[in-house]
């Protein structure tokens, strides 16, 4: 029998469901595969340096075991197949340190880090601002719609006049458009004439070629 130190990384979602049953489950896995648990306690709950299985935080579980060297591989295999265990590290140690016998410290799960809170505050503020901006725009649009609707209802009797004036404006606009198109057309004709002048030599050349 040798002494081993096992550090397990446990999923916080499972820890939230209940610490005692999860601890029992993990200890049962260790015992079932031939390990004798000397001390086992929750080491820390902290933010991970990088995401593991899309988890940013996790709980570290430290256990000191006595087991045969042959059973360590089976323990590793069983831990790999245990759902709540994100990662595990089993190392040999000469003796169990005295610190391991200290009682477990109490701590909150998902305690917000100062960095995280500032980040989330920024994100949330931006999102809220965007939502507020969107709401403002929507309210403005509604107000505009309401205003036009009100004007329409108020000027319900004078709608024919309004349409007439609109039609007159529209015809004026069409006329100006037509003038503009005429001007463009004249310009285009002029350019065509120039082009035909310029191309006349070429045409002659082509006709000459065709004649040949």
């Amino acid at each position: 029998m040798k002494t081993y130190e096992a550090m397990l990384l446990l999923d916080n979602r499972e820890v939230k469901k209940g610490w005692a049953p999860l601890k029992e489950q993990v200890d049962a896995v260790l015992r079932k595969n031939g390990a004798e648990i000397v001390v086992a306690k929750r080491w820390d709950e902290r933010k991970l340096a990088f995401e593991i299985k899309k988890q940013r935080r996790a709980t570290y579980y430290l256990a000191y075991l006595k087991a045969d060297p042959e059973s360590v591989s089976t323990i590793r295999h069983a831990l790999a197949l245990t759902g709540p265990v994100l990662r595990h590290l089993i190392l040999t140690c000469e003796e169990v340190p005295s610190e391991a016998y200290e009682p477990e410290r109490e701590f909150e799960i998902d305690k917000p880090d100062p960095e995280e809170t500032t980040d989330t505050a920024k994100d949330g503020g931006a999102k809220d601002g965007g939502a507020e901006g969107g709401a403002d725009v929507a309210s403005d649009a509604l107000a505009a719609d309401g205003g036009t609707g009100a004007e329409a209802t108020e000027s319900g009797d004078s709608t024919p006049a309004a349409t007439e004036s609109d039609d007159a404006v529209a015809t004026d606009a069409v006329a100006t458009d037509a003038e503009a198109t005429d001007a463009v057309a004249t310009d285009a004709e002029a350019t065509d004439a120039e082009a035909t002048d310029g191309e006349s030599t070429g045409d002659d050349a082509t006709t000459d070629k065709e004649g040949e």
Partner: protein
Amino acid sequence: MAAFRNFKNFTRDAKKTRPEESLDYKNVNYLQQLMSPQHRILSRKRTGFTGRHQRQLMRAIKQARFLALVAYTS
């Protein structure tokens, strides 16, 4: 020869030192002191450790990296 001696003194940042704390993967704060801002392991030239302690440091940092206590890179 004098220039060579100066060069040697310039390149060596630290004298041979012993680790102030235990080189264990759980001692995260001390391990981070022995890493660069880009989370690279400092060389023996920077740490001043003997070969034995430098190997212990390397192993501890790699174990801490595996358990996401320390970042691999940044």
